[in-house]
């Protein structure tokens, strides 16, 4: 899969939802072309494809459900307003991600002047009996990472993107993604070292 098309998928849009000459699967770029003509039903397809991803990425950054919902929706509104500037031959998500990331950064900057959101809002573990202290430290550790490292941790561990996809989304070389992840993990491991090597 090429770098340019790693995130590009195909959509099937029923005839009754979009006026088409024939009933056939549409590529993302074809759907985007419809959106550029002001077709909100085509945009619904785009929004529904990426809404969960957008929400959970925003949630990873801002750690508050209501704010993440608001930011992700605002990003889609912003993207719709700017869609004419978007090159429909490229993948939508990396372009959209920049808008989403900007809104998250705006929010974090605003919030840091006001208050800290309690960590309880932001996380759960699959197994409740896991060591609570370790989780707490780990989440605090993720929170305290430099933005680029936090970004790759969220995209890798909570969105399960490959290195190639992260590189495409963040517009950084794969090698940089790889080493950002390494250093992020190194810091996080250091933070929970006593839990990983209890004998010491």
């Amino acid at each position, binding site marked *: 899969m090429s770098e340019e098309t790693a995130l590009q998928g195909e959509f099937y849009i029923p005839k009754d939802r979009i006026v088409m000459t024939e009933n056939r699967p549409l590529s993302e770029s074809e759907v985007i072309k419809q959106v550029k003509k002001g077709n909100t039903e085509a945009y619904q397809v785009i929004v529904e494809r990426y809404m969960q991803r957008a929400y959970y990425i925003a949630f990873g950054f801002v750690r508050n459900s209501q704010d993440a919902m608001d930011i992700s*929706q605002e990003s889609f509104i912003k993207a719709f307003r700017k869609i004419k500037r978007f090159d429909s031959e490229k993948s939508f998500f990396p372009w959209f991600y920049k808008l989403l990331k900007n809104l998250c950064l705006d929010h974090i900057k605003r919030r840091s002047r006001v208050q800290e959101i309690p960590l309880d809002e932001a996380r759960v573990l699959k197994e409740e009996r896991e060591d609570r202290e370790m*989780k707490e430290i780990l989440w605090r550790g993720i929170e305290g990472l430099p933005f680029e490292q936090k970004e790759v941790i969220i995209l890798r561990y909570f969105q399960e993107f490959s290195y190639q996809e992260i590189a495409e989304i963040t517009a950084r070389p794969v090698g940089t993604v*790889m*080493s950002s992840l390494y250093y992020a993990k190194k810091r996080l*491991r250091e933070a929970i070292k006593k*839990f990983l090597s209890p004998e010491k």
Partner: protein
Amino acid sequence: MDHQKIKELISSYYEGELNEEEKKLVERHLKECSECKKEFEEMGKFEEVMGKMELKKLPKEAWKMYWSSVYNRLERRIGWILFSIGAIIILFFGGYKLVEGLIQAPDVPIFFKIAILSVLGGVVILLVSLVREQLFVRKRERYKEVEK
């Protein structure tokens, strides 16, 4: 190969991001190097912990309402834009008519005409200043690391 490079490869090893050649390289090195073997084991424990972490999931119902919420917000935004354009035209036209009537009115004292014109002039300057400031803020690069 140096230990630092191997440590970075170990990180990618657990994520399934190494090709066969790199995997073999790591595995060969681990047989010979106790320091990197320890790193490998600790990374394994760390990956296990990270694998158990997940973000709080939203209920399915939340997603059913998502698009309608985006659509309503989009629609309201368009409504506000139309309302604002109309209000601006009405305000400017009304202001123009007010000033015109005021200047032409023979029975209004001159100091009152000056006061009213001064208030209107002030409002216009404040509005222009506000709009200019907003445009300036929008043009500025807020985050160097983020591509617009």
